[in-house]
């Protein structure tokens, strides 16, 4: 059990955290032919856009209501209306997800009310799904924005099923924001191997997996379709991945009666055993050969790898669910979690295998990481890692100084196996070579004697 401590500093130094609006915007990017829209000043959008471009190395659809000082004072209705009309005419999307920001929240713009008025005034927009979400910058973090956006999509779009759905092969999967497009592809494979038909809300695998479309599109290149979201009530199960998605799963159950299960994480042997057991029971299909082999390979990787993980001290900074996945996994490999830093409140924090979890920043991580063997955080940890001379394993968003962030795997037997290789290799590469001084006597009297005998 970890104690959760909230930092008392007045100045955040080297932020770990990012804001809710862009977490929500990323969730909206997992919808096909979609355009996320931030209701704020243009910088709110452009910073987020550049961040995602650098992370995914893809064009990012994201627009702004471009609030000026005057519009902010007078209220943003006109800007929201114009933005939606402009986006509709210029990019012809199926879905527009509108995120509030600190600017519009403080002014008190009622986005939900705005949308009702806009709907009534613009019947020509009827074919476009509009979902608003309240995501003030001054509360919560990226992960909260993502989770709230998913809940809002369920509330606004999912239809109440008319028929009994217990026999359906459809499964709803609600991935947390710590899952990459590659993770979603991997999970799709796993679910399909059990003859299930999974739909992911949101589905970044089609939108941000880095593929070559046949033509240019200004909106998302793929993702879950609005009609698929509407029919999520026809599934037999909802599988939420990450504690952050529990709220969305509950909302979906209340609305449609589809039962849910939450997997707090899918990194590591036992976590994936639980998934396999669940899928096998829910589908009535025995665990396919492929995964029996993969499990065996993971066990072997654990055996080969544990030499390099055992007793190593890790310093981790990440959003709660990613922190939970990485710290439990490293702990299961024999590492000690020397310091754990996170961004926002979550029920998973108390279960982190560390003495304490600090809601803080990367300065806190750097201070706590002295003498550690490994730092695990996003790319902004690079300065700290360099100063401390400790290898950095990059996870989460943003990862802007490495290729393939969208395809990094942390789920499944295979994903965990490769994670052992990647992190294990990093630890091996940084093994300390012994020198004649390595075993120099440690006790003071002995050291004095040695020094005396050394030629001056």
């Amino acid at each position, binding site marked *: 059990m970890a104690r959760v401590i909230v930092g008392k*500093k*007045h*100045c*955040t*130094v*080297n*932020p770990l*955290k*990012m*804001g809710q*609006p*862009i977490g929500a915007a990323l969730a909206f990017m997992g919808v096909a032919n979609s355009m996320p*829209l931030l209701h*704020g*000043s*243009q*910088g*709110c959008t*452009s*910073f*987020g856009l*550049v*961040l995602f*471009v650098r992370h995914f*190395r*893809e*064009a990012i659809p994201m*627009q*702004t*209501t*471009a*609030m*000026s*000082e005057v*519009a*902010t004072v007078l209220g943003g209705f006109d*800007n*929201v209306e*114009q*933005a*939606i*009309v*402009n*986006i509709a005419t*210029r990019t012809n999307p199926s879905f527009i997800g509108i995120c509030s920001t*600190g*600017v519009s929240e*403080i*002014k008190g713009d009622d986005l939900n009310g705005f949308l009702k008025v806009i709907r009534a005034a613009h019947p020509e927009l009827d074919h476009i799904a509009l979902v608003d979400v309240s995501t*003030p*910058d*001054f509360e919560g*973090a990226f992960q909260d924005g993502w989770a709230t956006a998913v809940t809002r999509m369920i509330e606004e779009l999912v239809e109440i099923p008319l028929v009994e759905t217990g026999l359906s092969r459809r499964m709803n999967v609600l991935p947390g924001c710590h899952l990459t497009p590659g993770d979603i592809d991997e999970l799709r494979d796993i679910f399909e191997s059990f003859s299930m038909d999974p739909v992911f809300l949101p589905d970044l695998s089609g939108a941000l997996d880095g593929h*070559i*479309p046949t*033509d*240019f599109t*200004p909106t998302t290149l793929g993702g879950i379709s609005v009609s698929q979201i509407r029919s999520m009530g026809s599934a037999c199960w909802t599988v939420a991945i990450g504690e952050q998605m529990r709220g969305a799963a509950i909302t979906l159950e209340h609305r449609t009666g589809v039962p849910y299960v939450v997997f707090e994480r899918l990194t590591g042997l036992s976590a994936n055993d639980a998934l396999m057991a669940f899928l096998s029971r829910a589908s009535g299909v025995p665990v396919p050969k492929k995964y029996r082999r993969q499990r065996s390979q993971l066990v072997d990787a654990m055996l080969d790898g544990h030499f390099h993980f055992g007793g190593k001290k890790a310093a981790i900074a990440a959003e709660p669910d990613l922190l939970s996945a990485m710290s439990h996994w490293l702990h299961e490999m024999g590492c000690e979690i020397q310091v754990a830093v996170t961004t926002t409140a979550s029920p998973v924090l108390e279960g982190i295998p560390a003495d304490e979890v600090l809601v803080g920043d990367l300065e806190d991580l750097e201070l706590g990481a002295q003498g550690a063997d490994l730092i695990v955080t996003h790319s*902004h940890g690079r*300065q700290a890692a360099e100063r401390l001379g400790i290898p950095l394993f990059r996870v989460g968003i943003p990862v802007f100084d490495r290729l393939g962030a969208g395809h990094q795997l942390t789920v499944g037997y295979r994903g965990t196996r490769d994670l052992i290789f990647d992190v294990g290799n990093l630890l091996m590469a940084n093994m300390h070579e012994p020198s004649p001084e390595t075993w120099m006597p440690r006790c003071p009297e002995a050291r004095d004697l040695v020094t005396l005998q050394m030629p001056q």
Partner: protein
Amino acid sequence: MSSLGAKVQKVFEEPGCATNQAKQSRERKKGCNKQLAPGAAAGGCAFDGAKIALQPITDVAHLIHGPISCEGHSWDGRGAKSSGPLLYRTSFTTGMCEQDIIFGGEKHLYKAIKEVVEKYNPPAVFVYQTCIPAMIGDDIEAVCKAAALKLGKPIVPINVPGFVGSKNLGNKLAGEALLDYVIGTEEPTETTPYDINIIGEYNLSGELWQVKPLLDELGIRILACISGDAKYHEVARSHRARAAMMVCSKAMINVARKMEERYGIPFFEGSFYGIGDMSASLRNISQLLVDRGAPAELLGRTEAVIEREEARAWERIAPFKARLAGKRALLFTGGVKSWSVVAAMQEAGMVITGTSVKKSTPDDKERIKELVKDDAHMFNDLKPREMYKLLKDARADIMLSGGRTQFVALKAKMPWLDINQERHHAFAGYEGMVALIKEIDKALFNPIWEQVRRPAPWESDVTPEELCLHVA
């Protein structure tokens, strides 16, 4: 906010700006802040612009007063390099929470400044205002004044809430802050007749260092670069320079002009991009210094360096002629800057087939026409979809543009080179032009292009035997 409003208005009336002077007085009053179309806008806010302009000052603590998004989404993002201090890459923000909004963020800001000073002891703290504290009425000027008194250090307010305007306006407001609070506040220990300021150069990818060795050779001292690789005290003492060069004209013209007005430092507008422009800049620097009393022999030495460096650059570009002759380039970027590179590309035998003139002034357009003759298209507003089609139809061999359009080119399987702010290569001076030609060559002749454009086996009628041929 009224003082900020007045400042914005003043910046808009900038007499040094040619575009502004061409306007009628009513139009001028409206300023150069184009009304943005909601849902169809691109680009950063004023805060973004201010940080771009000032963050390259390397030993200052840059503290952002706002919620986490403003700084948390953007820090350590730009490639301004430092020859020494690294504090500018450490991020400081108050990360305002709901409590601050209810009770006001001034106390929080003061405590944050104090913490930064106690922990990091920088020569100065720059405090950036953002939208939310501006909305709730946090008076950062007052907080900075109080903090400066108590802590005995310059604490400089940069009043740039994002919603007052564009990135460009933010550049200018940042300049105003330097003029109001930094420039002229300290005296240099010694001055020479060869002291210059370089204004509007940010040392991205280390570009200042491509130019500096030549200045060193000529004995010309950069008293302050505003703001690339600058230190606080250098900027504070920059008012004793003999002459100034203004590099990125749109960004900091107010700084150059007001320094001329206040301290009598003459300036010229120049560019380090392109061989001809580089030479002209060296000439102008020397001439201005000589006009201000430096020995006239500097002019001769400058000509000698120019002659030697130009010859060396052309000599190094020449070998690429055979490979690059007739290659067609699309050039999409704002302003004049990119146009300086055209001469080098043409010298290497390349043809410019199209360019955007969206941000160009009438003068720019004339210059472009002259440079490319009539064989290039000038696009006023090319939508990404049309740009994609142009590239997909292979009506060019390479595109040079900024990061925003990168994926339009790459998804059309077309070579692309970043010539905008985020680029990783340094393209300044004579060295930079040679590097640019090398980069173009590398991009064009990478073996992937032939491979990635080949149809997939299920898309074509080729036989398995033919496919095997490719492998062999």
